[in-house]
């Protein structure tokens, strides 16, 4: 229960950063998707039922600050979570490189699912070309955000929780260790 609350609090912080701070710092309508990072992390380190429920509820929460279609973020986030769960037994979940790769793959899957859910279910909307156009910039932004997150997480852990291991941050590559 405590962990779930922490995840929701992190999602809340990410939502506020993405809606208020990022638009002032970055030009245009682009902003890194910090919640996607959280979803990938949950996919790597939480069980399917508990994690799935948290991610789906998080998606509903996110509908209140992003997009105009109730249930869309929940569907997309759940799909990404389940996709990560699908490969989790075959990979080393402690690898930070894996987290970076999954964030990149998650960005592509996210773009595809948004395009599918809107173009297929709403005949009057066509977003696929716009999403394809935006995808490279979004990939770059999410990659940079993931690298910064890893550096920051390691620093925070060492500063405030030196004796405690956080899942996924135990055996980091030397490049992310400070």
């Amino acid at each position, binding site marked *: 229960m405590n962990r779930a609350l922490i995840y929701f609090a992190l999602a809340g912080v990410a939502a506020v950063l993405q809606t*208020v*701070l990022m638009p002032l710092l970055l030009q245009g*309508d682009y902003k890194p*998707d910090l919640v996607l990072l959280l979803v990938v992390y949950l996919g790597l380190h939480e069980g399917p039922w508990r994690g799935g429920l948290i991610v789906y509820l998080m998606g*509903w929460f996110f509908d209140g600050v992003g997009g105009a*279609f109730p249930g869309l973020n929940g569907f997309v986030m759940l799909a990404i979570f389940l996709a990560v769960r*699908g490969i989790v037994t075959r990979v080393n979940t402690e690898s930070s490189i894996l987290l970076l790769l999954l964030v990149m793959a998650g960005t592509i899957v996210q773009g595809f699912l948004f395009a599918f859910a809107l173009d297929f279910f709403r005949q009057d909307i066509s977003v696929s070309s*716009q999403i394809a156009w935006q995808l490279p910039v979004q990939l770059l932004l999410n990659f940079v955000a993931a690298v910064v997150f890893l550096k920051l997480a390691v620093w925070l852990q060492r500063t405030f929780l030196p004796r405690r291991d956080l899942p996924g941050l135990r055996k980091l590559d030397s490049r992310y260790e400070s």
Partner: protein
Amino acid sequence: MWEWWQRNRPLLLGAVLLLMALLWYSINLRQQDETNFPERMVLILTGPVQAGLNQVIRGAADVWDHYLYLIDTEQENRTLLENNRKLSAILAESNEVRLENERLRRLLDFKEAQELATLPARVIAEDATSWFRTITIDKGSERGVVEGMPVVVAEGVVGRVIRSSPRFARVLLITDASSAVASLLQDNRARGISRGKGERLVFDFVLRQEEVRVGDRVVTSGMGGVFPKGLIVGDVQSVDRQEFGLFQAIEVIPAVDFSHLEEVLVLLRRPQ
């Protein structure tokens, strides 16, 4: 059979969960014009935090702009004075047109169009994703803001309210892909639909035989029941009249600079 079920259970359950989520999204598409309970709760919870943070950041930026970054101020001042003179001339001219218009109205015994009540609001947040174009404003249903109300600035149309809570509301910008505004060309009155396409708009369903030029002004037609007639949408940027097909491909640059939206006006008129 049991073995097969045991082996494929996670996959099947995952697929069922995903299908249920997709089904729920699909059902919600029918009621997407109303604010549901979770969305209202999110607006109530995040609104004050967003408003507070926005005020702090804007305050810091204001200090920077007014006291620490005065290098270009003199040049800017000269440009503004020049612009002021030009605008005064235009205003005098438009006053003449307005007076003439009023005389003609009286002459034809037209009823004076009733002024719409407006409510100023401050933009406190943008959409959380890069894929959609929405903003959050600091006025909600307590001040009469409900779903479907048009939102404008002096330059033109901004969008319409799609979600509202007692103190905050979310506005779908006209540049969002799911936005469609019934519009017409100001000069030749050709009708069409302005759809959002990222930073631009496309003006759909304008017949091939219509004469459209780059720079033509696009305004709302008042046909959709959301926006009053005559609000500025944008200017034609490019026209592609293909060899075949019924319609032209027209791109429009919005009149509003959405990257610098700080205050907006909500037209307190319910959608018809």
